């Protein structure tokens, strides 16, 4: 209880940071994942190979390594810090943006695979009809196939988003001040490992359970009825 009163404000700030991380990464992952899925179902051999290679490499790399690579590989070795190095908050901004980049690239592979499964649920006749109407591959995908595919995979996308929210805790290894970083501080100060752990677990459930509920609702509402 004392922990809650003492760290209440910081708890809220930290969880807002977590939400920002998860939200921005979710947008990035959905955009990149959709592009990847389009590449993987495209008739062009080179696009398919590149997308398949990307998905298999990134999906099978531990997320901690992806995040560490963003900080050590990109920022320190290659100098890609995504910020103006002279700004007074360059480190905080850089860590945050690199983390968003890492989560987006990683989660995109899962979005891509879910969408590809969704594409397979769209009857072949749909794209044949699109073609007979004179739509090209990109147009058919854009107006006919992907909208139906998305509606079929709302529920698995929800699971991916929940996983993403929980994955954001890894950002603390490169110093993003999200919830798990605060958790480390509170444990260091209070030594109350289990109580503090429970508080943060509860905090995360406050984020993930509504996310699951929203996606469950959407999946029912948007389901393609035939």
């Amino acid at each position: 209880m004392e922990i809650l009163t003492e760290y209440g404000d910081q708890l809220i700030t930290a969880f807002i940071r977590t939400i920002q991380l998860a939200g921005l990464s979710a947008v990035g992952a959905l955009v990149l994942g959709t592009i990847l899925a389009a590449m993987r179902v495209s008739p062009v051999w080179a696009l398919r190979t590149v997308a398949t290679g990307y998905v298999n490499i990134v999906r099978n790399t531990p997320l901690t390594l992806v995040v560490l690579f963003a900080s050590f590989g990109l920022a320190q070795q290659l100098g890609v810090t995504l910020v103006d190095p002279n700004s007074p908050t360059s480190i905080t901004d850089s860590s945050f943006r690199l983390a968003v980049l890492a989560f987006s690239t990683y989660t995109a592979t899962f979005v891509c695979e879910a969408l590809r499964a969704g594409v397979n649920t769209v009857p072949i006749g749909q794209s044949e009809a699109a073609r007979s109407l004179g739509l090209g591959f990109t147009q058919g995908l854009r107006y006919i196939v992907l909208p139906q595919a998305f509606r079929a995979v709302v529920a698995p996308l929800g699971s991916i988003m929940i996983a993403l929210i929980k994955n954001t805790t890894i950002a603390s290894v490169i110093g993003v001040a999200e919830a798990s970083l605060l958790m480390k501080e509170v444990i260091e100060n209070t030594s109350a490992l289990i109580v503090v752990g429970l508080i943060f677990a509860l905090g995360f459930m406050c984020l993930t359970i509504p996310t699951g509920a929203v996606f469950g609702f959407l999946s029912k509402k948007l389901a393609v009825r035939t």
Partner: protein
Amino acid sequence: MKLKALIAVPALAVILAATGCGGQAGSSDAKGLTASASDGLTIGIAFDRPGISQKNPDGSFSGFDVDVAKYVATKLGVEESKITWLEAPTPQRENLIQNGQVDYVVAAYTINDARKEKVGFAGPYLTVGQSLLVRQDETAITGPESLTGGKKLCSVTGSTPAQNIKKKYAQDVQLQEYDTNSACVEALKAGAIDAMTTDDVVLAGYAAVNQGKLKVVGKPFTKDSYGIGVKKDDAEGRNKVNDAIEEMIKDGSWAKAFEKNLGASGYEMPTPPSVDRY
């Protein structure tokens, strides 16, 4: 139903063991340190702090903490071959002691009041303070007072030194937090940050293994003490460990251990602390 139980029981056991709720957690459950010493000791240390306590490639351990731990074990009547070394990560040290998974912890363990509520501290055996580690050719940073103009400073995620910086120097420096000290050292060597901060002896350890590349600068700007963590209610065991520490300081082994492990850093040997039998 049967199948479910078959899966559920081992799964539960694994969870309990992992969270340390299991009954058979260690060698010294409910027993005091002196009683458990007869059948060997399990000692919690850090594995990744050069000069303080480090696991070597050949599986042996070395460092100042390790030498202190060994000396205390000898005084408790346990030979070196009967010591089991267990990694004690920072957030888990109190739990390891409370559950009896280790007999005592010697892991750059700073004595403070929050921790005293959970465990007992013998010692202190070393006085430390937060200091700065910089590259050898650094001239602009000479101590905490020169931390101005948005200098980039690195420390371990959530650690007390990192929190100190956030509280006292937030306006003047930028803090990069990484999850290990070694990550900070790498970033420092790569030039991504200007300095790293934590307890001076830990920094001295890194300076010792990176001679000619890194150096410790400035006077320590905090004052802390390292103690040996034991069970809270084991007054007898704590007394014995205190005796051992006092003897180690008196017979010169303390200074010898410091010189051997941290001498190469050029870091000046502090005066040995006097044991606090609270």
